[in-house]
């Protein structure tokens, strides 16, 4: 069964969607979408390093994205530049360095489109293992830090005052963000990973009344997007990433109908 590239892509996509669901909710709640973008852009550098040093791609991306995240935290402490300027600085400079390195690696055959937008043909059995084991680890750690992370998302000072150590939870969450980007890069591509995090979560917000429900709907939305997107990718011979994101946009638009209704009810 795993011989079929499409089945492999489907299993990989389902694994990714289960993890991006809850992480995406935190990205929306904590306003981290641009931060996610920055990590994803830096992933290109990770990929090129992986190619040039014969490393595993996911591992290399994870390391580079984590380093960028740590650099960001340091920069925030040392300069007075606003957060978005720092994020832009890191995003574009790491993307540029990645592209420059690609230029030097002319001897390696590079599927840059696949890298940017995802390629379902490229998913191997090894990738499946990385996605499912890595994904399970991410979810486990997220469950462990859920309380302090969620409490500090609602109100940092409340969490700190009542002894929950929000700073540690935030640091761990940053690492989880790097990890999800590392494991999902082959499926969605680095330009669209943040979309996979945000759009299902945004869709879920429109139809949920509690945080738990929002996480659940976000996962379901991600799963539907992956399945719909991959089938249309196969059908229309389009790149997997854009197809998945387009499918999630469709779901988001549908969810807007629900919110309009609830606003009407209120008035």
């Amino acid at each position: 069964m795993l011989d079929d590239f499409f089945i492999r892509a489907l299993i990989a996509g389902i694994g990714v969607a289960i993890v991006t669901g809850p992480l995406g909710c935190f990205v929306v709640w904590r306003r981290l979408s641009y931060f996610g973008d920055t990590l994803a852009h830096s992933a290109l550098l990770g990929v090129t390093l992986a190619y040039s040093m014969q490393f595993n791609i996911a591992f290399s991306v994870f390391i580079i994205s984590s380093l960028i995240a740590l650099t960001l935290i340091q920069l925030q402490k040392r300069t007075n530049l606003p957060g978005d300027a720092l994020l832009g600085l890191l995003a574009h400079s790491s993307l540029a360095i990645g592209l420059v390195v690609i230029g030097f690696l002319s001897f390696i055959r590079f599927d840059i489109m696949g890298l940017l937008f995802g390629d379902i043909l490229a998913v191997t059995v090894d990738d499946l293992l990385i996605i499912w084991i890595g994904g399970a680890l991410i979810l486990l750690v997220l469950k462990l830090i859920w309380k302090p992370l969620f409490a500090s998302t609602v109100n940092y000072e409340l969490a700190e005052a009542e002894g929950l150590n929000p700073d540690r939870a935030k640091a761990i969450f940053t690492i989880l963000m790097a990890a999800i980007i590392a494991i999902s890069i082959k499926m969605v591509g680095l330009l669209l990973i943040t979309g996979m995090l945000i759009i299902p979560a945004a869709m879920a917000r429109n139809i949920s009344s509690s945080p738990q429900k929002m996480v659940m709907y976000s996962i379901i939305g991600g799963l539907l997007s992956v399945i719909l997107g991959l089938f249309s990718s196969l059908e229309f011979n389009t790149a997997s990433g854009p197809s998945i994101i387009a499918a999630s946009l469709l779901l988001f638009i549908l969810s807007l109908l629900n919110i309009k209704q609830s606003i009407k009810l209120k008035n």
Partner: protein
Amino acid sequence: MSSNQNILVKLNKAGFSLNNKWLVKGVSLQVEKGKIVTLIGPNGSGKSTTAKIALGIYKKIDGSVEKYTSKVGYVPQKISIDWTLPLRVNDFMVLTESISNDLIDEALSLTGVTHLKDKNLGDLSGGEFQRVLLARAISKKPELLVLDEPVQGVDFTGEIALYELIKKISDELNCGILLISHDLHTVMSATDHVVCLNGHVCCSGSPMDVAKNNEYKALFGEQASQILSRYEHRHDHIHTSEGEIKKN
């Protein structure tokens, strides 16, 4: 002051500065079990900052804080819930600690908002939200309660009831309370110790002592000190059911 097992939190000449400006400096105070310490002072006098120092929210401080409990309930002065977070009162109650449904119901009924349990936090009025904040802080039966203007926006009768509740909680749970309030009338009636702040401790002591203090009068005006004496006056006699006035 001798060492005391009842001390929950103690500030020694604590201060905090931001961007080279002192928000508050040289504050020494302590909160003990079963006692209510109230911080008063004009806007920007460092009341909330002092509370945050006591809570350990500000870490790079001058002086020192000794905290002898980890069971803390906090009602911040300001809290805004983003629309992106779908949060019901019920979810909010278990934010920092998982507590039983019975305890949630009990706390909500104490502050009079049981009927709001399934409502979205964003749909509450200011006063309702304040009651939920207080309910959340007391529901986990803390040893130390820090209340930063806990009754802002609450209607007049509710305000009195909530202050009575705060007093009751301090007695029943034997917890220490650090209270910040503007309402000199109501606060003083239940307070054991008043600290009057204006960037530093300008005076402190029992409500009566503080009311007589000249710095306090300078800060709040003659009227304010009369409020206190009037209050004190009220309690030097009792009205019997026959309408007589009896001296204490």
